[in-house]
């Protein structure tokens, strides 16, 4: 049947393929050597141009009292929560800059230490109000999409998962394409407008959250991605520290692979495809920073209308998330913060698969929501190294037709309605 428990997702065991481990080790050693080099100097000269080198590494430990979370075996305590990155960039001329960053992660069953090109950009700024960048470009979506991997920039160990799901990072993190961007000063009394418009191609790793989710039904996704285009407009208002903005993302995504035929499960794997009919995200946000205090709030709505199984069925998913967060710097080395994240999903399946998927639109049910209350403390041991302690109190598990941190493969006995989590995380950057 469609709800087969057999998973075809590559399992992250201690073994794994030798060449992937070697590649990961080489990348880690490169980062480590770069870190040592960086302690002496973070730049060097190449062809009479200064090249800057920067990097980061983070390691987390997660324990949950009940459900396993983010594909990790967190109910036993899991340290499968690692990522690191290394970048180089150079200002080639007054207006032209190039750079690239490599990135690697392991998050439970996701990532599995497959390094990737995080971004690689050629950026030409004609004027402050008009610039062009092209290559693999981080996508501007809300306050934190393009910096979601760099938790050393924030108080919290995990961004609100209702808006920035770390297991679904690949869905929004970057596009292979081009951006037009700029800042327009409206004068002293009206503030500054910043804009970004982009188009490109999204390509998800097969080790990311959505392919992993499909593997719970026996799916083997070989490719997942497509056209993305959108824009962002933000206003730094005349009120000092207050910013508001809006983002829009449209996409036409297709996934291809193999799957178990739910109507004839014993016949083996058959070709599987899904594609967007309508797929868009709206995000609205605001930020207020005054002295040592910061308040952020964002709302994201993701509408996903997909053809499934080569067009035999169709799904309509309405995914909404919002959060409000506050953070306070007590002193130079100590910050505290808290947020409330609210996530709901409603889904309707039409066509042949509707027999297996009744409508799921009651968002009061734990399966269709995740309300997360979080408290965090951050200690900066020095300018480059920080440690965070964070607790999550989650009501619901939002495990509908689109994943949100809770997966059946690591919760074979089903889901408890609530999950409390302790997250310890440390990160180093240079």
């Amino acid at each position, binding site marked *: 049947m469609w709800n087969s428990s057999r998973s075809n997702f590559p399992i992250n065991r201690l073994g794994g393929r030798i060449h992937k481990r070697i590649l990961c080790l080489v990348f880690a050693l490169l980062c480590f050597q770069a870190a040592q080099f960086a302690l002496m100097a*973070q730049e060097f000269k190449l062809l009479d141009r200064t090249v*800057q080198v*920067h990097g*980061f590494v983070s390691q987390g430990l997660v324990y949950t009292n009940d459900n396993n979370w983010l594909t990790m075996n967190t109910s036993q305590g899991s340290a499968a929560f690692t990522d690191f*990155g290394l*970048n180089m*960039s150079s*200002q080639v001329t*007054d*207006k032209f*800059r190039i*750079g*690239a*960053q490599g990135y690697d992660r392991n998050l439970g069953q996701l990532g599995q230490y497959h390094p990737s090109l995080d*971004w*690689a*950009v050629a*950026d030409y*700024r004609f004027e*402050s109000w008009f610039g062009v*960048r092209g290559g693999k*470009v*981080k996508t501007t979506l809300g306050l934190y999409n*393009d*910096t979601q*991997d*760099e938790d*050393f*920039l924030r108080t919290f160990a995990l961004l609100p998962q209702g808006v920035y799901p770390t297991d679904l990072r690949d869905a929004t993190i970057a596009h292979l394409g081009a951006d037009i961007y700029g*800042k327009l*000063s409206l*004068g*002293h*009394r009206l503030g*500054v407008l910043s804009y970004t418009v982009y188009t490109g191609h999204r390509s998800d790793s097969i080790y990311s959250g959505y392919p992993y989710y499909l593997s719970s039904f026996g799916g083997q996704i070989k490719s997942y991605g497509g056209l993305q285009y959108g824009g962002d407009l933000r206003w730094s208002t005349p009120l*000092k*520290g207050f910013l508001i903005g809006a983002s829009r993302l449209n996409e036409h995504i297709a996934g291809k692979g193999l799957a178990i035929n739910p109507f004839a499960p014993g016949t083996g794997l058959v070709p599987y495809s899904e594609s967007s009919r309508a797929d868009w995200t709206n995000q609205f946000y605001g930020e207020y*920073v005054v002295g040592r205090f910061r308040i952020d709030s964002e709302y994201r709505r993701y509408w996903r209308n997909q053809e499934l199984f080569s067009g035999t069925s169709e799904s309509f998913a309405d995914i909404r998330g919002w959060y409000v967060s506050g953070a306070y*710097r007590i002193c*130079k080395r100590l910050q505290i913060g808290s947020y409330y994240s609210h996530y709901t999903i409603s889904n309707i399946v039409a066509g042949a698969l509707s027999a297996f998927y009744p409508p799921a639109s009651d968002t009061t049910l734990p399966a269709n929501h995740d309300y997360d209350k979080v408290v965090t403390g951050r200690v900066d041991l020095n*300018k480059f190294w920080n440690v965070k302690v964070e607790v999550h109190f989650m009501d619901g598990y939002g495990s509908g037709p689109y994943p949100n941190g809770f997966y059946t493969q690591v919760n074979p006995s089903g889901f408890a309605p609530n999950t409390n989590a302790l997250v310890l995380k440390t990160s180093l*950057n240079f």
Partner: protein
Amino acid sequence: MKSHKLLSLVAVIVIVSPVSVIAADVKVIANGSVKADMISASEVKSVFLEESNSLRDGTHVEPVLEKDGPVHEAFLHEYLAGTDDDLQSYYRALVFSGRGSMPKQLASDAEMVAYVARTKGAIGYVSAETTVEDVKTLTIVREGNGAQRRLITRVEPDYPDTLKRLNIGGTVRLQLTIGPRGNVETVEVLGGNPILGEAAVAAVRQWVYTASRSRTVAELSIPFDSH
């Protein structure tokens, strides 16, 4: 000198964008390649936040910071309205998203002066008391902070007879620097007939404003109507 009384002279004094010169604990210095002698506080902020890598006059600039210390803190407070932690997070967000680079950061005023002196386009800051050689000190003006200066003594410009007979009029735009005591220290003609400009400058130099704690740079227009 012709009579100050003119038949139809209307001197409309318009203070446009009143500004105040910032007198702070730090001074902003720049490499000699930077053409401007005076820039706005908003330009300083834009450069140091990597929103712009050139000044309004088109000169390319490269921001240089001090790593820490009272001079650094004073600069951040005066021009960027933030702490060093906020600024470092801001730069790191640019670096790790591929949108910018980490500016040069130096350990002392001496290193700052030496670096700015030898680096084309460099713009940095030092203590107001630091002796600087081979670099220029920029005058920083802050726009629109309500620092209105009230004119208490006004001398009308002489309308040159020749131009008046020929019905040559027009508007002269001036930029003036008003000192703390209210006297007009400098006047620069920004536009208009040069002969009318000379007349306007001669009159405006005799104007007196109310006193203030700092200098004010103001723009004004004086129309000359021959009818």
